[in-house]
Structures are given as structure tokens and as C-alpha cells.
């Protein structure tokens, strides 16, 4: 009898572990599926957009920048500064983990890092030239209720700007509403709030405003406003160092 009980406990333990693993696996899979859907809802596969970035400083003053951005696939982004005059003609390129900055006076692209900020303020380069979340992160469902998922995102590699993200997703439209960015040790670096859901046409409905603040930069706030997002077919050669100084030509086509 005692032997049978041991066997029953043993078999039950094996089954429990197996069921737990399956549940955990299912949770991970669901998290990644949701994350991919979030990416799809934020941006078409290939598009152009105009954005305004506002940096608000602790003394209340503001600095504003307007960018023209093109993106193709999951990991190609190029961006041109349109205003102010002091920044006009600058361009940045991101191919996966690689980032470059082109300054007209310097006349060649130089490598930059995702943690730098070429415009100052709370947004860094990886925020402004963000790749699809699913390219950089593995997602699991941390918590959910009738209206929201909270996803835990862990960076796939060490080159990603933030080690961990916590993402709030509206279940109704699988749209991100908030992201918290953490270091590996769990320190909150910044919070991104996605607001003002807007219909941009061509079936694109997404938040038009991303607001960010950081406990590390008290008093600073930054705002990114999308004014135009539209699908566009782009050649791969648009996303190259050679083309970076010519990216403004795309605005004429």
C-alpha cells in the first residue's frame, strides 16, 4: 500500500510538472502572439510618417523637432530632420542593432548607440527609431483581466536598450496603452504612455501621441506626435549609408 502511494505521488508529480510546463509554454506563446499583434497594429509592414517631438524642460521651456521617417520590415528605419534649421538635413539610420547619424557638415555617417539621444530630452535613439517589439523582446503574459493584458518583455540580446519592459495592452483592439522600461536589476528607467487613438486612413488606427517621463530625469517630459502614417513600398537600398544623405528625395516622390 505504501509502495502504491509513493507511485501515485510520483506519477502525480510528473503530471503536475508537465501540465505546469504546458501552461507556462502556452503563456509564453500567447504573450509573443499578442506582442506580434501589437506590432502589426502600431505600424504597417512598410510605411512613411511625419512626427513632431517636443522636449519639455524643468523650467517649462520647450524644444520642438519635426522628423520624416520611413520604415521597412521589422528592423529597418531611416529618419530625416526637417526642422528646426539648426538640425535640418541630419539623418539617422537603424538596421537591427546598428545605428548611424549623418550630419551634413561632417559629410559622413558615424555610428551612434541606441542609448544616446541625438535630440536630448527623455526619448533616446532607440525610442525614436524603435524596431518592432517582437524583434527585440520575448513576451509572457504577466497578468490579465477582462479588458487588459500586462505583458512581461525580456530582451533577446544584450544589445537591446532596455533589459525588461512591462507592457499594458488593451484587449479590445490589441493596442499598447503603456510601457514601462526597466534595467536588468529592476530599476524603472522611463514610462511611455500611448494616447489619442487616431484613424490615419488605409486601415491604420493607432495612438497618435506617445508621452514619456523618467524618474532619472525629473522635471523633463517628452512627447512624440504622429501627424501622418501611410503605407509605402520602399527599396531596401533606401536603408543604406550611401542613401542616408539623399533620404529627403523620398519626400518628392
Amino acid at each position, binding site marked *: 500500500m505504501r509502495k502504491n502511494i509513493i507511485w501515485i505521488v510520483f506519477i502525480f508529480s510528473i503530471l503536475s510538472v508537465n501540465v505546469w510546463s504546458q501552461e507556462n509554454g502556452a503563456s509564453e506563446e500567447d504573450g509573443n502572439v499578442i506582442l506580434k499583434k501589437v506590432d502589426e497594429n502600431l505600424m504597417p509592414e512598410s510605411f512613411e510618417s511625419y512626427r513632431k517631438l517636443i522636449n519639455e524642460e524643468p523650467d517649462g521651456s520647450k524644444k520642438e523637432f519635426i522628423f520624416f521617417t520611413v520604415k521597412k520590415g521589422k528592423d529597418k528605419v531611416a529618419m530625416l530632420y526637417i526642422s528646426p534649421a539648426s538640425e535640418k538635413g541630419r539623418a539617422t539610420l537603424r538596421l537591427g542593432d546598428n545605428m548611424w547619424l549623418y550630419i551634413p557638415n561632417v559629410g559622413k555617417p558615424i555610428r551612434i*548607440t541606441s542609448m544616446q539621444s541625438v535630440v536630448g530630452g527623455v526619448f533616446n535613439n532607440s525610442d525614436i527609431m524603435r524596431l518592432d517589439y517582437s524583434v527585440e523582446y520575448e513576451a509572457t503574459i504577466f497578468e490579465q*483581466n477582462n479588458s487588459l493584458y500586462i505583458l512581461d518583455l525580456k530582451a533577446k540580446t544584450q544589445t537591446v536598450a532596455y533589459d525588461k519592459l512591462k507592457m*499594458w495592452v488593451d484587449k479590445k483592439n490589441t493596442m499598447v496603452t503603456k510601457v514601462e522600461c526597466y534595467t536588468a536589476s529592476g530599476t524603472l528607467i522611463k514610462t511611455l504612455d500611448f494616447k489619442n487613438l487616431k484613424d490615419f486612413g488605409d486601415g491604420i488606427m493607432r495612438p497618435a501621441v506617445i508621452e514619456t*517621463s523618467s524618474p532619472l530625469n525629473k522635471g523633463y517630459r517628452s512627447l512624440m506626435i504622429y501627424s501622418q502614417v501611410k503605407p509605402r513600398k520602399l527599396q531596401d*537600398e533606401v536603408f543604406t549609408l*550611401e542613401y542616408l544623405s539623399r533620404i529627403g528625395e523620398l519626400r518628392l516622390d
Partner: protein
Amino acid sequence: MLYAQALPNAFSQDYDFDIPQEEEAKIEFNGNLDAKWGLLQTRKSSPFYGLQFYDNPEKSDYLSQYRLDFYLDGAYRHKKVGFFMKTFYQYAKEEPLSPSFFELHGSLNLSPRLSLSVGKRRFNWGKGYAFNPVGYVNAEKDPENPDLALAGKTSVYINYNRSFTSDYVQNFSLGAILLPPEAEINEKFEDADKIGAAFKLYFLLKNIDIDFMTVLKKDEPRRVGLDFSTNLKESLEIHAEFSHANNETKYYIVDDFISQHKKDSESYLLGLRYLNRFNTTLIAEYYHNEAGLSKNEFTSYANYLHNSLESNNSEMIRLSKQNMSTVFRSKTLMQNYLYLKLTQPEPFSWLYSTMSIFTIFNLEDSSFLLSPQLSYKPYTNYEVLLWPILFIGENNTEYGSKQFENKIDIWMRFHF
């Protein structure tokens, strides 16, 4: 954990904004005006000082300089055709100004893969920040101000650019440049066989930028080189350049006469950029130039200038000044240099300011320059810059014999 996301609206302005329209065909101008005032402490023991101010013997220990540098850029684009100019005017006293065309070229950009330009345009080869041993078609860079706009070269440039979906070569481009020489025959013509050519092949190979380049010109050494840059870590970039020259002419002084000899020589650069968690950027570069002067050769050169000056012979002085601005004109005359620059945006929470300090250390003679900088951008399109430079070293060292001991510049820059 689950709570409503309704945060108070931190920005009260309307979220819509006007997109600056790009018209199909228009000419557009922009540029900047730099107003510069400088105070310079002279080094009267310097032969460079003595020769430069030979015709003005009465001088105080301090000189001041005021000038306006005006850059006007113009661009016109219509479909695949474009035109670009960058002009430079310098105002120092009331007299008619004439523009220097730093760039003036037309371009035909048939597609993102193929482009062509004809005219004067600027090239900037190499991965180095302060030095570029492979900058065969670059204007000569001043390591004291590597970001300064410089004059381009008259050229015909064609580039083919191609991307691949691959885990190895993601992009390559091939650029070919024809380099007509300056017109010397009746100021309009030049021998056709003096047209030079330069080629550069670029690869993005497994997240590494790699270039191979060469330049071929009649009566000049053939040069071949390569460079690369990559990110070792998210916050650490490394870069390097290597150049080999066949039969490079080296000039040096023997017994107060200029001598020269030809030999193969190599130059190279090793560098890095590092960003720490306090947003401080470090740029470090080591530059070796085999064709540069050794410590003893520089001492001979400085003695030659001294002796010319002391001779009071106007012809010798004219010749020395001419050699200073031709065969010995390089900003990096000697063989081994170390460049270090630290940049800190918004130090001590000073909004809109950037503080930096850099040094160029001559490893041959242990002389160096040291320059802290403070930049402040209180308003959009306006910048003010405070820029002292100290030249430190013993007599007859490179930086210890500069014509000025110290100088301080104040710049005000307006963009439009």
C-alpha cells in the same frame, strides 16, 4: 497592477501640427552665421610667430581677432535631378566679399541604387574622428576642429549601391571618382593625363562597416587602404584605418636645406567611442604616420625657421614662409599622436549646455594642446560657444613652438 491609464494631460497644446511641404521643384536656402571673437596670447620666441608677423614688428603680447563666417547653402531638386552649393564668406574688415564655393555640383539620382554627380563636392572617407589616414579625397581635416565645414574637390562621382537579405553581406556600394586637376594652363586647361581616379568599395558585413579604397594620380604615390567600424557592445564602438603609400615623398631639413626621399610608408589609426551611464562620451584615437617627422627632424625644422628669421634675409624668409605653407603645412606634421575627447551634455543639470574637453598629445615630443569647451543653446537655432585652447610643451616641440601660447574664442552661431 491593473489600473486605468488616464494620466493628466501634461501638454496642453493641440496635438496636430503642420507638415512642412516639400514642393516638386523649388530652390531652397539655409545656412549659418558664425560671429567669432578671439583673444590670443602670442609666443614671441616661436619661429612660426616670428615668420608670420615678420612684416609687422611692433606687436603687443595679446592680439584680438574679430570675424564673421557666413555659410550659405542652396539646393534645388526636381524629380531625379538636383543642384547643391555651399558657399563661404569671411568678413574681417570692410572690403568687398567674394564667396568661396566649398561645394557646387549637380546630381542625377536615377534610383536609390545608382547616383551620379558632377562638380565640386565634399567627400569624407575614413572612420576616424580627428584623423583620417585613408581620407584620400578628403579636404585636409583640422584635428582641433574636425566638424568644421571644408572645401570639396572638383570631381565626377558615380556610385552603385545594393542591399541583400543575408546574414553576411547586408549592403555593398562601389564609388568611383574622377579627379580633374586644377587648371594651370591659361587658368583654364590642364594636361588630360593628370586626371586622377579614386575608388571605394563598402560592405556592411555581419554588422561591421568595412571599406577598401585606393587613389591613382600621375606623379603622386599610389595609395591603398581599408577601414572598419563596429559596435562591440551597445555602448562601445571601435574603428580603425590603415593606409599604404608607394613611393611617398618625405621632406625634412638637413643643414638648413630641404631634403627629400621616397619610400613606401604606412599610416594607421585605432579608435573607440564609449558612452557611459552618465551620458558621457569618450572618443580616443591613436594615429601613426610613418611619413611624418621624428622628434629630431622637427627640431631641425624649427631650427631652420629660427635661422631664416635671424638671417634677416628677405629671400630666405620668403622661402621659409612658403615651405611652411606647402611641404610642411600639415596639421599633424609628426609621427605619433593621441587624441582624447570627453563630452558631457547638460553637466550639473545646466540646461541646453554641453561641456567637453579634448587633448591632442604629440607622443614624439610630449607636447600637447588642451582645450575645454562650453556650448550653450538657450534658443532654437542659436548657439554660443566658449572655447579656450592651451598649447603646452618645451621649446622646439610641436605645440610648444606654436605662434600662440593660449587663445580663447567666443562664437555665436545663428542658423536660418
